């Protein structure tokens, strides 16, 4: 039985998920389950966007980037600057945020990770540096914007109804934009030359080098990619909830959960796992009180890591 | 460590049968098997991709396998944790030497000794004198073994400061501290100069003659295999294709085929 699941992990996982959803539908009714799933999708979009970039960086460079959450926060606050302080429309804020965070990612690679790799730094050294970077970004956010909760200039009251389900206008925007970008990302990673190269590097950096791929360039593009997606995820998260300095850390662990569940280095896995994680977390509110949502998410991560460290879609790797 | 069962000279110490390991769709090991007689020196050879490393790791507990049997002195040890297999007297070295470099040579050696009450937390706390006593014994023994390998003068140096050849000898010396019944060497000749290689083989022959240590090794160097083994086991494509005396195996058409023919 274990062998069956080991051989078809994705099918097994979705099978289990399907059973759980079915049980919930029977217990709570289709409407509640559908509504929770829809809410989960908005949350999952943020996770998925954050996870794709993180998984590529983790997979290619073996960098456990604890600053990634604060990249999202950075994007959110840049969007605040553009959207609220300068009064420009949200679309402009998104563009600025993505560009700024992409540059932040690039800068971190040129100034920190690249030089450290050249010195032969180990993963723990780099991890501790990412924590340091996270602190620096967070302190900058606190310095300029303080601790009070801020919101983007978005519509929080209007909602749309379809098929008996209700979704806020902002939530709808998040899902639409998020899914659109995720689809585009999926296409780029799957079909473009850059995407193929990123996946090759993720499989084996040394092999890619010997194959003649300009790994330095691919790494730089990956950082731009990861930064831009993180920035977008941050803005969308800020639009969904609000802006506070802890935003970065709050999103970090669920995003790591998606990365690990999807298999490190696997962008499609991270994408799916992010969406599924969001839905599962929201579905849990049907069974436990909403305040336990996040705990549930972390427990899922722990259980997944213990049962199948390589994730649902990953290949077993010893190092 | 358990007392080694009294094995008649020539009786099989290790029996490997029908081991199968799949990685995804590929059968890295496909029903391999052979026997190692007590007190003998056996070589495991085969072209690249034959599955030697996987089988070697499987026997020593570093790789779980799907099926098969590995019996050490009659006791089944398949899929036991690596440390449990080592404790039963089957000790391996590594192809890329794993000398514990940030530790002194003497520490490397003393670490390996079996039955150390000082290593167990409870014994350490409740029987400190027994722990200290054993520690003294182990140190003396370690120095003796280091003498045998002409490494005694480096006892207090960090293992990382030794030359590559010296570290290889250290790994062997360390393995001997465990009082093994069966010593498994993973490509002992890899990456060392011929004179050191000769010394190593001398040590191994002495061990066999003086202490009755059984030795199984994986090797690519044919000259070594021809001159320093009682039995040769040949693998190709995950299976054992020939077992016999070195001369016989060298002339076996199946073996020649595997090396020159289809195999990688």
């Amino acid at each position, binding site marked *: 039985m274990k062998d069956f699941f080991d051989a078809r992990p994705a099918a097994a996982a979705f099978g289990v998920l399907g059973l759980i959803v079915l049980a919930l539908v029977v217990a709570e009714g289709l409407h509640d389950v559908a509504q929770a799933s829809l809410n989960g999708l908005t949350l999952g979009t943020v996770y998925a966007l954050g996870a794709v970039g993180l998984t590529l960086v983790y997979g290619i460079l073996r960098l456990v980037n604890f600053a990634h959450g604060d990249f999202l926060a950075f994007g959110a606050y840049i969007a605040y600057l553009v959207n609220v302080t300068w009064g420009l429309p949200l679309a402009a804020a998104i563009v600025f945020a993505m560009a700024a965070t992409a540059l932040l990612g690039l800068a971190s690679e040129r100034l920190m990770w690249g030089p450290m790799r050249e010195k032969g730094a*180990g993963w723990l050294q780099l991890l501790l540096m990412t924590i340091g970077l996270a602190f620096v970004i967070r302190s900058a956010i606190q310095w300029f914007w303080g601790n009070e909760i801020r919101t983007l200039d978005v519509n929080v009251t209007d909602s749309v109804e379809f098929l008996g389900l209700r979704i806020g206008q902002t939530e709808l925007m998040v899902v639409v934009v998020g899914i659109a970008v995720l689809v585009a990302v999926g296409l780029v990673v799957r079909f473009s030359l850059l995407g193929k190269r990123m996946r090759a590097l993720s499989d084996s950096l040394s092999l890619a080098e010997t194959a003649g791929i300009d790994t330095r360039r691919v790494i730089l593009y990956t950082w731009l990619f990861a930064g831009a997606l993180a920035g977008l995820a941050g803005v969308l998260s800020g639009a969904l909830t609000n802006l506070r300095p802890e935003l970065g850390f709050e999103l970090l662990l669920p995003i790591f959960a998606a990365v690990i569940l999807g298999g490190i280095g696997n962008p499609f896995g991270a994408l799916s796992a992010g969406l599924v994680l969001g839905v599962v977390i929201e579905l849990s509110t049907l069974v436990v009180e909403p305040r*336990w949502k996040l705990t549930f998410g972390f*427990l899922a991560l722990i259980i997944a890591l213990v049962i199948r460290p390589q994730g649902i879609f990953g290949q077993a790797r010893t190092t | 460590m358990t007392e080694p069962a009294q094995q008649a000279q020539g009786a099989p110490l290790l029996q490997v049968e029908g081991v199968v390991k799949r990685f995804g769709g590929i059968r890295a090991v496909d029903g391999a098997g052979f026997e190692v007689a007590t007190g003998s020196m056996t070589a495991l050879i085969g072209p690249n991709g034959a599955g030697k490393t996987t089988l070697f790791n499987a026997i020593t507990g570093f790789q779980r396998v799907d099926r098969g049997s590995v019996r050490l002195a009659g006791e089944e040890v398949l899929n036991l944790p690596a440390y449990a297999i080592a404790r039963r007297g089957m000790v391996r070295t590594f192809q890329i030497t794993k000398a514990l470099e940030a530790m002194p040579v003497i*520490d490397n050696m003393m*670490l390996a000794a079996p039955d150390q009450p000082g290593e167990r937390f409870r014994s350490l706390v409740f029987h400190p004198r027994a*722990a200290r006593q054993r520690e003294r014994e182990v140190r003396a023994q370690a120095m003796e073994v280091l003498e045998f390998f002409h490494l005694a003068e480096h006892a207090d140096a960090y293992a990382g400061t030794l030359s590559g050849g010296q570290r290889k000898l250290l790994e062997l010396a360390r393995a001997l501290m465990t009082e093994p019944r069966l010593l498994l060497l993973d490509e002992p000749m890899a990456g060392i100069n011929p004179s050191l290689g000769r010394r190593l083989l001398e040590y191994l022959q002495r061990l066999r003659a003086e202490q009755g240590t059984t030795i199984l090794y994986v090797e690519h160097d044919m000259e070594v295999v021809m001159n320093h083994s009682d039995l040769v086991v040949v693998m190709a494509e995950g299976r054992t294709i020939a077992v016999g005396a070195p001369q016989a195996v060298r002339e076996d058409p199946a073996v020649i085929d595997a090396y020159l023919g289809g195999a990688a």
Partner: protein
Amino acid sequence: MSVSALPLAVTFEAFTDVGFWSGVLVVAGIYAVVTLGLQLNVGFTGIVNFGQAGFMAVGGYSMAILVLEAGLSFWLALPIAVLVTMGFGLLIGLPSLRLRGDYFAIVTLAMAEVVRLVAQNARDLTGGNKGLYCEFEGVNQTCFDDAWRSVSDSMLGFFESFWSDPEPLLPLLIVIWVTVAIGVVALTYLQGTPWGRVLRAVREDEDATRALGKNTLLYKLQSLMISALLGALAGFFLALFLATIHPDDYEPIVTFFAFGVLILGGLANYKGVVVGAILLWTLLEGTRFVELPISEEKTAALRFAIVGAVLIGLMAFRPQGLFGKREEMVLGD
């Protein structure tokens, strides 16, 4: 006395204020205790444990719950809470110590967060966001630190015989630093034993150690459980210092700061932990000296920036910290 001709007014009063130093040394001591455990794990066993804040929380909350809700005596609650925390360490170690290094780090971080979130949400048991301090039954009030307070007051009474106005934190300060001293001595002794040798071997190369017949999982578990013990002690001290148990005091920030202490002092040596803790906290609390024309909020932001800069700077330019050896920084790669 203050130099106010400069735009940055630097007051030196704080340097000589006993109250200030007591506060710094208490917090530094708490961090020293928790980081001693971290040193055992990371510096000597090679396991990257990001869950120390979780151990502190389990220890602190178990103690408070046992006193306030089970009505146990404080002195009985302490050892039981230690055992609970060690049991928790065993529970999370068993399934996760066989994972590779970075996975283990993430699992322990997630575990610590689960603990904190449970503390925040299991209101009936833990007081949720109100935290735990005292229980009221009519006119009777029990606080978890009642027993400690009476001990502390007796000690202060004793000090009054030769010091007219003894610093109220002094008893706690003494207990904490005696614990640190015992911890350093005990751990240093353990390192020199055959047991300690196996730990170092596990850190150096786990496969080689397994090949020599050592059950490395067992050793890693023991290391984790000792670290849990120290975390529990640190949790007690924190609770006594703050006179409250609250989920906000066990955020991952605490673990990250402990890592800052660890690498400042340098890996694989225990005295470095002591020096690192005192240095780092003097530096952090020292931001109060400098009266910048900025708000309280910004001072808090400054602390983050300082720790962040310390982490980045050390890793980039001096990964061995103050007392570590350069070779020791090579970690299970």
